[in-house]
């Protein structure tokens, strides 16, 4: 209902699309509706008064049809403008991302090489800055990658490259990395796997992204530390991965929007302002495009459990390939 009322707020719609009143599809649609209704009434009344002059009635119908035709044309043109603007935006993001990625690659590889060559930085502050350079460069790479992925999802140009692989291996890899990164925090990790877990059929690289997004989210919500438990189990035709944290949980209000684009939960935003609020949106899009499902349960103050499923290969339902 709120969405419908929102669509009737013409001024808001005009601002949203960045077009004038007479180019706003919602406004033109209402005008067309009003003209159709009033013309039906007018034709009925006129026909009653001038039933001896059918030419006049025909002329009125012709004029109304012409007006509707013109309005219809304006609506189509407006949509075209919006579609073109969207296309231009996508191209802009793609070109800019590529341009930004080249210097980011150069910085990344040069830092890699400096690290490998074991350059001696005696000054502890300079050493710290060097580490920060690497981390911030990686952060920028993540931001650009997320924006590009969002662009692909919105343009429906996302390309999945599915293969058969072990989800457990991905979990072990991501958890292993996060363990190292969180050595000095109060966050601990545990991985539980049920026996005879089948392999999954999905895009391996993107699955790694999904696992990283969900585990990073659990870390982000574990503001006071706690254990993060990753569980893998077989469910009919799928493998289910769940990530439970003992963090601050998500409020009822925020739960409705947790998978929305650019959404940052108020409870976390108070503590951490970094991030675009895209990770869970991307995770949902990737899991669903892979033929899986994603969801969560959460209790404020007690923690959350995010889960997702990925399909097993079609000829592997009974389970010849175990992890």
């Amino acid at each position: 209902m709120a969405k419908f009322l929102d669509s009737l707020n013409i001024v808001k719609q005009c601002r949203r699309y960045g077009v004038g009143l007479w180019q706003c599809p919602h406004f033109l649609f209402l005008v067309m509706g009003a003209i159709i209704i009033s013309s039906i009434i007018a034709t009925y009344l006129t026909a009653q008064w001038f039933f001896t002059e059918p030419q006049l009635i025909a002329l009125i119908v012709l004029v109304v049809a012409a007006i509707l035709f013109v309005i219809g044309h304006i609506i189509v043109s407006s949509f075209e403008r919006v579609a073109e603007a969207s296309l231009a935006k996508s191209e802009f993001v793609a070109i800019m991302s590529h341009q930004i990625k080249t210097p980011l690659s150069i910085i990344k590889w040069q830092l890699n090489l400096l690290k490998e060559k074991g350059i001696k930085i005696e000054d502890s502050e300079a050493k710290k800055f060097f580490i920060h350079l690497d981390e911030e460069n990686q952060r920028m790479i993540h931001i650009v990658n997320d924006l590009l992925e969002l662009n692909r999802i919105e343009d429906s140009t996302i390309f999945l490259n599915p293969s058969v692989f072990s989800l457990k291996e991905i979990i072990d890899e991501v958890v292993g990395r996060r363990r190292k990164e969180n050595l000095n925090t109060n966050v601990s990790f545990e991985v539980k796997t049920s026996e005879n877990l089948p392999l999954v059929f999905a895009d391996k690289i993107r699955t790694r992204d999904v696992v990283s997004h969900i585990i990073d989210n659990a870390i982000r919500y574990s503001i006071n530390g706690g254990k993060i438990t990753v569980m893998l189990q077989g469910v009919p035709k799928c493998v289910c991965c769940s990530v439970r944290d003992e963090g601050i949980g998500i409020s009822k209000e925020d739960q409705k929007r947790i998978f929305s684009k650019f959404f940052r939960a108020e409870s976390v935003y108070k503590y951490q302002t970094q991030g675009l609020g895209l990770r869970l949106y991307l995770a949902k899009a990737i899991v669903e495009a892979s033929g899986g499902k994603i969801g969560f349960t959460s209790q404020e103050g007690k923690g959350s459990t995010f889960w997702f499923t990925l399909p097993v290969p079609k000829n592997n339902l009974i389970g010849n390939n175990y992890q």
Partner: protein
Amino acid sequence: MAKKILFIEDEMRLQEVLGAKLKAEGYEILAAMDGKSGLEIAEKEKPDLILLDLILPKMDGFHVLEAIKANPSIPKMDGFHVLEAIKAKPSISAIPIIVLSNLESGKDIERCLSLGVRSYLAKTNYSLEEIAQKVSEVFK
């Protein structure tokens, strides 16, 4: 004898840094700044591996790929003269190719894979160590 790697990349700084890493790993590095000279070097030196960027001046990476793979089903584009040159020397069509690019659209990846590329690596997503590992896997 050291394996020869041809790195076709127009960004001098990327070429320098990856070249230094691979040299340290014991490979011989041949470098080209554009597709045309890359193809000439490939024909002349017959490298053991080609690392290829996709956006290149004069001739983009796709044209180089098409020329190297000499795939007759692909319509001729502005790299067709290289294709003809390669057809005359089909021995280089078997050289393994790793694409290193920041273009990551589905179409690009699909096109590269259909042209027989060994791996498609997004530059920002791989560290030098990981790239060196992918290179060593080719020679295993």
